[in-house]
């Protein structure tokens, strides 16, 4: 069985830097895969590369983006344009910058459905109202004529989602879709995305830095650090037995609503230093911050090793995987 999206060995380069290296990732139909990691670790670039929406001087240096049997990294511009919005859609963190301020939300939705589905003006308008209703915007007949600035942040994000799902895409890429929103509104938006995933049996690639969101809404999780995938696991496995020291550090550093810790009792476990220390590291990029680092860690980038099906980690110290298994893993770096 082949995955809906199958990214293999993706590297993204700027003239003087390679901020994403050798990232592989799959998403099945109806599955939610979360991509988490430190700010600047390459999550957004990875997402943008899937639809070749990279910033001007960036390019896909190597790798394949297989979707429906085709490599999107090598598809012609015209065919790619058909894929965008119709088969694969994207939602970003800041809906205000992604929406056109001088067009009503109805016109913006209608534009997309007319482009991809060739609907008439009237039919497109009716479809826009339908979509606003689908994303649970109250009074859609009235809202359809409003402009982005007349809507709250949560409503704007729903409009973006309406545009994204207008053509029933098979894959939705959501880059921090709720980071700018309150928890109450975040809950509504995640609930909505998940209902659409189920109803349309859409694959969902969810980029987030919120581990709670991952725990509650993701099926599988990929963790990135300094441009590389360092761990991958089913969500419950990741939370129960995180392997990579970065993942372990993240979980230990997060205050939890249900946990017993309080500042009067003791400090939080922190990860020392910052991701800036990864620059120029020859070996494991996490070594300058890692409590388990040893000399060997600084010599070569550790391989991403398969420990069990769907379970990968790039730290030989914590996995201590049998040599034979390490040899079968895809070479990295």
């Amino acid at each position: 069985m082949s995955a809906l999206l199958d990214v293999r060995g993706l590297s993204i380069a700027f003239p003087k830097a390679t901020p994403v290296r050798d990232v592989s990732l799959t998403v099945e139909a109806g599955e939610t895969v979360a991509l988490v990691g430190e700010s600047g670790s390459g999550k957004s670039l990875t997402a943008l590369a899937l639809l070749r929406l990279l910033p001007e001087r960036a390019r896909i240096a190597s790798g394949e983006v297989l979707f429906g049997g085709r490599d999107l990294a090598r598809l012609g511009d015209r065919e790619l344009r058909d894929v965008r919005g119709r088969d694969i859609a994207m939602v970003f963190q800041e809906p205000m910058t992604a929406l056109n301020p001088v067009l009503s939300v109805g016109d913006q939705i209608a534009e997309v459905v007319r482009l991809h589905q060739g609907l008439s003006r009237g039919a497109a308008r009716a479809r826009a109202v339908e979509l606003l209703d689908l994303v649970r915007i109250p009074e859609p007949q009235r809202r359809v004529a409003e402009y982005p600035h007349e809507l709250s942040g949560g409503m704007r994000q729903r409009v973006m989602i309406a545009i994204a799902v207008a053509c029933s895409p098979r894959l939705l890429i959501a880059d921090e879709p709720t980071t700018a929103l309150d928890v109450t509104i975040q809950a509504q938006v995640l609930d909505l995305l998940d209902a659409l995933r189920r109803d349309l049996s859409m694959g969902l690639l969810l980029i987030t830095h919120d581990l709670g969101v991952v725990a509650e809404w993701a099926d599988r999780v990929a963790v990135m650090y300094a441009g590389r995938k360092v761990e991958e696991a089913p969500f419950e496995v990741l939370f129960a037995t995180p392997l990579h020291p970065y993942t372990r550090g993240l979980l230990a550093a997060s205050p939890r609503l249900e946990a017993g810790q309080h500042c009067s009792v003791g400090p939080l476990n922190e990860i020392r230093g910052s991701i800036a220390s990864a620059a120029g590291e020859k070996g494991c990029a996490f070594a300058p911050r890692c409590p388990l680092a040893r000399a060997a860690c600084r010599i070569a980038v550790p391989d991403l090793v398969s420990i069990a099906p769907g379970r990968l980690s790039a730290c030989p110290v914590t996995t201590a995987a049998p040599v034979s298994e390490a040899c079968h893993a895809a070479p990295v770096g």
Partner: protein
Amino acid sequence: MPLLSVEDLHAGYAVGGQMLRAVDGVSFTVNTGETVGLVGESGCGKSSLAKVLMRLVAPSAGRVLFDGTDVAPLKGGPLKSYRRQAQMVFQDPFASLNPRHTVAEILKGPLEVHGLGSRAERAQAAGAALERVGLPRAALSRYPHEFSGGQRQRLGIARALILSPRLVICDEPVSALDLSIQAQILNLLSKMKAELGLSYLFISHDLSVVRYFADRVLVMYLGRIVETGSWQEIFSRPLHPYTRALMEAVPTPGRRRHAAPLSGDLPSARNVPAGCRFHPRCPLATPLCTEADPVLRPAGDGQQVACHHAPTGAPH
């Protein structure tokens, strides 16, 4: 006597000939050595409240007492003294640091404004402040853009502490930071509090952070405090339907794909609903709620709740 005492404070902005009631009758205290957490949705008035406390926005009614003294009429020397004792740490460390000033200039600035110390003493104090927040003295000659987000927040804290304040208002101090850096900054704030005997008003929209960091919690909704209590009370026995919904909304490991507890958005402060301001979104609202505005009433040790139907154990 509490260090800070806020009494029925009102403040707002004139928008299009209309009054927007950003802070709408808020009362609370902060004791010496205490961290009071302030939570609530975006736009509920948290930063506006902080600005009134810092005397950046004038209140339309109510009082702010610092050490028993009303701060509204302060001028000249006494105002300067208040400004020295109440400092602020902001969310965006980059926007709050002048990019053209070196770290040394940024840290010495407040000392110069307040005419404190000699040249040499100010330089010495800047170095010491930097080391206190975990940055090397060598950083004194560098510029803000040369630092990471977490390091910049350390600079923001060093600047706030250089005047030896007694109260520090932290407005979303860790919201812009990576999780791995959040813990560093929370630990630093905690350490500074213990070492310097500080009191904090700690504003955050992140309930998990407030649960970890606050001694007492204020829950704000549309310009009002709707519930208050110790962190143990608020997080183990939330009474207000809004507080409960806020907690219910936090995604939590161990629970899968649960439905959103609240529908709709925070209404505009230009158009505060009559009666209980939460009633359009409240699952427990009754006709009484649309007519009568509930006031904070005691519900246990120090807990107070403004809801007609919350179980308080006290008659109302």
